[in-house]
């Protein structure tokens, strides 16, 4: 017990340089996001505008188009990175990613259903996305309880792929029912942060705040659980209660991220992968690092999405999938799966 808490203090101090580097990197990505776009306002003009010269068109593009999507991408990345780290730690499976396991698909399907039924207000979409994510989480937990599935990372991902496939088919069915809603749904399920008003944050931030409080409460017991359930019980924790709290936190985070940017897959895989590579498997350390790395990954992907197809934009979900798929292969091919 003593050794464990001593170790924790040591861990956060050791982590300072990495946190600093990741933080500076995030600041650079934020700067890039404000400077670069698919339109005629160049990085040079943007920089001049940011440093004080008056250029109304450039100022409009930076303040009304690039700034909102930057903030939304940062919050989305934060939520998805944390959700991935939590889910992987709890299932002790490096492939447990909300997108791959069908949590995002559950959330996306729920929103598609809401759009079909005529929903349009941001509030409704947020709540619906949360409920869908919660249902998806429930199915994942149920899947980990199936004999043998919880211990085999690849089989769990297969189960998730099946669930995602089913939900995607159902979503396609919704689009066939009503061609009018199909447009909106099709855009929605590829994921994007472009053109979203900052007001959508108002409805999601309370949920993310709740999730962050849960994360703070659950970080230490979750680390204890990685020593094994018996050890965790020995340290005075209740594994069942911890699982419930983690599940709730993941659902809130993924639901919020989906409400903001649509169901982005692979982000929850890539972010913990990077943080583990930097800081090792201890959840208390990876969670801290997720705070700068998650936003940097999503925002970086968004900047790429603006540049590769100008004057149009590539959907953000396509870019994150392009980044994420090789990471998935790398983890699976690494022979021995890192045990969490």
């Amino acid at each position, binding site marked *: 017990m003593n050794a464990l808490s001593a170790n924790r203090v040591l861990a956060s101090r050791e982590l300072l340089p990495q946190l600093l580097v990741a933080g500076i990197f995030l600041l650079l990505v934020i700067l890039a996001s404000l400077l670069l*776009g698919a339109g005629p*306002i160049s990085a040079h003009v943007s920089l001049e505008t940011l440093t004080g010269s008056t250029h109304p068109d450039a100022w409009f593009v930076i303040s009304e*188009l690039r700034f909102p999507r930057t903030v939304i991408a940062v919050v989305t990345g934060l939520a998805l990175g944390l959700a991935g780290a939590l889910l992987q730690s709890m299932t002790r499976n490096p492939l447990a990613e909300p997108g791959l396991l069908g949590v995002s698909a559950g959330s996306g399907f729920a929103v598609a259903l809401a759009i079909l039924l005529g929903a349009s207000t941001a509030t409704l979409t947020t709540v619906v996305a949360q409920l869908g994510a919660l249902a998806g989480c429930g199915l994942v937990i149920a899947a980990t309880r199936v004999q043998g599935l919880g211990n085999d990372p690849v089989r769990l991902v297969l189960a998730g792929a099946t669930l995602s496939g089913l939900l995607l088919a159902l979503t396609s069915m919704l689009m066939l029912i009503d061609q*009018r809603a199909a447009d909106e749904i099709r855009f929605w399920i590829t994921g994007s942060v472009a053109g979203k008003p900052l007001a959508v944050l108002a409805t999601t931030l309370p949920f993310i705040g709740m999730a962050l409080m849960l994360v703070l409460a659950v970080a230490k017991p979750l680390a204890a659980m990685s020593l094994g359930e018996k050890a965790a019980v020995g340290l005075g924790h209740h594994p069942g209660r911890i699982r419930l709290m983690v599940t709730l936190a993941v659902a809130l985070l993924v639901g919020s991220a989906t409400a903001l940017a649509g169901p982005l897959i692979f982000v929850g895989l890539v972010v913990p992968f990077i943080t583990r590579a930097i800081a090792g498997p201890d959840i208390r350390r990876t969670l801290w690092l997720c705070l700068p790395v998650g936003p940097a990954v999503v925002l970086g992907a968004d900047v790429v999405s*603006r540049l590769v197809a*100008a004057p*149009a934009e590539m959907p953000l979900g396509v870019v994150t999938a392009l980044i994420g798929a090789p990471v998935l292969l790398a983890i699976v091919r690494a022979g021995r799966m890192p045990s969490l």
Partner: protein
Amino acid sequence: MSRPATVALNVLQRCFTILVLAGLSSGAVTADTRSLDTAFGPLEISGQPKRIVTLYEGALDTALAVGAHTVGAVITRGGNHVADYIKPAAGNINIVGTPGETNIEAVLAAQPDLILAAPRTSEQQYRLLSRLAPVVVPDIPMFEADTWKRETRLFARAMGRADQAEQVIEQVEARIAEVASLVRERIPADQRNATLIRWMPQGPLVMAEGLFSAAIIQATGFRPNSKGLIKPGRPHSEPLSLENLSGLDQNWMFLATLNADGDKALAAARKSPAFARLNAVQANQVIAVSGQLWTSASGPLAALAILDDIEAAVLALQP
């Protein structure tokens, strides 16, 4: 595929046509026989077909405009039935597919004696359909100002109603002249630049100058301009980044979605700050239009409906 096979098929098909016509209307066989240039070679048709299936919105429009009897049509893009503007004329017409996918069984069940298909129908599809009835696939360059007139004439000749087509085209031209003089009267010559935009969730699409509705806009005196954002041969651009919207700012904006509901599109667009600051928006010169009519349809009836929209918009201007 091999040319002899095509020729053989054509011959078979002509025999079939003649047989069908002979069976349907004994005595009318000697009626005028005409040869049509189609994308898959010349096609001979005689008499006035009585059961026409249209697999193209422009073909349905023409068929109804010249008073032919249609027994099947495809839905419009973004809708669940034919476009709203043509519903009164089409009635509760039998649906045999979407613009992208034809339900061959439904076409067969409609027992057509003539099939009017879309430009760019694939050869495989053409061969399949040709086994049911003669198929007319236009071989007319798309997205040019007179594309719709040439298509209308081709389809009308196939239906044995060339005279009616000329009457309808004259009617459209007279109406164009009427609206054009109204535009000249109400809008100064240097205030007639326009864009035609489809507002999508992904971002705005700018439609090509050669698109049917853009050609009608142009004929009435407006100057549609897509600012070089469209690849050659495409009907519209990719969904553009909102950062590019200000580059499309003109005196006038015609705004549609893929759906019928133009007003809803306008409401959605107004929420975007990039849209709200456009000069056309501030001058209140944005005209919300139906995407079904303005970005998917073509043909004489569509032309008349579009002209009505333009006239209403110009009349709504404060004198």
